[in-house]
């Protein structure tokens, strides 16, 4: 199966809301072996000027990969998940993610490049919250490239 070249420029609107919980921040922090008190202790986070527990710098991957799933599971994309290799990743934080945030992610397919029998696909998730249910407040931009290996690669 080949990757659909028409994917480039496609976008997927923000679907579900991701509620950032304190226990999820603690669980994710433990999973990446983070020990900074701002991930675990609300008072320590507040002492640093944050509204609540601070998520680790790569926490947004949870939201970004859920957004990516829309593309990977899109029957029109032609992507075989078992042949996907993560090639690069970037997080740009417009502000820190804290417990209590309600995050939404809009996915953009910025690049599709044929490589051998496979393809390199670059996606960007714009992660934001809605103020008063209307106004977008940007929280993070994540970009990720995945290599979909062709047969025999």
């Amino acid at each position, binding site marked *: 199966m080949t990757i659909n070249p028409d994917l480039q420029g496609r976008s997927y609107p923000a679907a579900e809301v991701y509620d950032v919980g304190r226990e999820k921040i603690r669980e994710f922090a433990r999973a990446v072996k983070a020990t900074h008190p701002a991930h675990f202790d609300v008072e320590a986070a507040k002492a640093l000027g944050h509204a609540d527990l601070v998520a680790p710098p790569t926490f947004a991957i949870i939201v970004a990969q*859920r957004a990516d799933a829309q593309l990977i599971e899109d029957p029109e994309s032609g992507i075989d998940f078992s042949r996907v290799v993560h090639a690069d990743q970037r997080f740009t934080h417009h502000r820190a993610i804290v417990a209590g945030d309600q995050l939404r992610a809009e996915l953009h397919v910025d690049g599709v490049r044929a490589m051998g029998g496979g393809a390199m696909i670059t996606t960007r998730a714009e992660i934001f919250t809605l103020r008063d249910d209307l106004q977008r407040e940007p929280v993070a931009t994540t970009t990720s490239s995945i290599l979909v290996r062709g047969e025999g690669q």
Partner: protein
Amino acid sequence: MSLKFEDLAVGQEIGARSIDVTRQDLVKYAGASGDFNPIHWNEAFATGVDLPGVIAHGMFTMGSAVQLVSDWVDDPAAVVDYQTRFTKPVLVTDTTGTGEPGAVIEVVGVVGALDADAGTARIDLTVTFEGQKVLMKSQAVVKLTEQ
């Protein structure tokens, strides 16, 4: 304790850390992140897709390597940008029940660039496993608070 921008110099080492990784750590990361790709926990599946064995999530390595920076700057929210390329897999051997790590990742951080106008420092991370770099262009930009 807070870091002062003017005390930093390009080339200065911010610290180093060894990260022990076990198969259980990968299961924990799978659960915490929602990435359940079996190449990170099932030997037969991993070797069936031509990998040498179970490998760590690239995002586990990226996520654990940056803790050196979070702790150095003493505020994880100061990491305003963080990027990497994944170049080599970290093979994690099954040491279940022995108390031994299945892999050890080494991280060293160095001040790579300073931007006085933005008040930011770029920390370049060298992340290796068995002497080989597993991440390339692994860079975290930290915003230093005004003094």
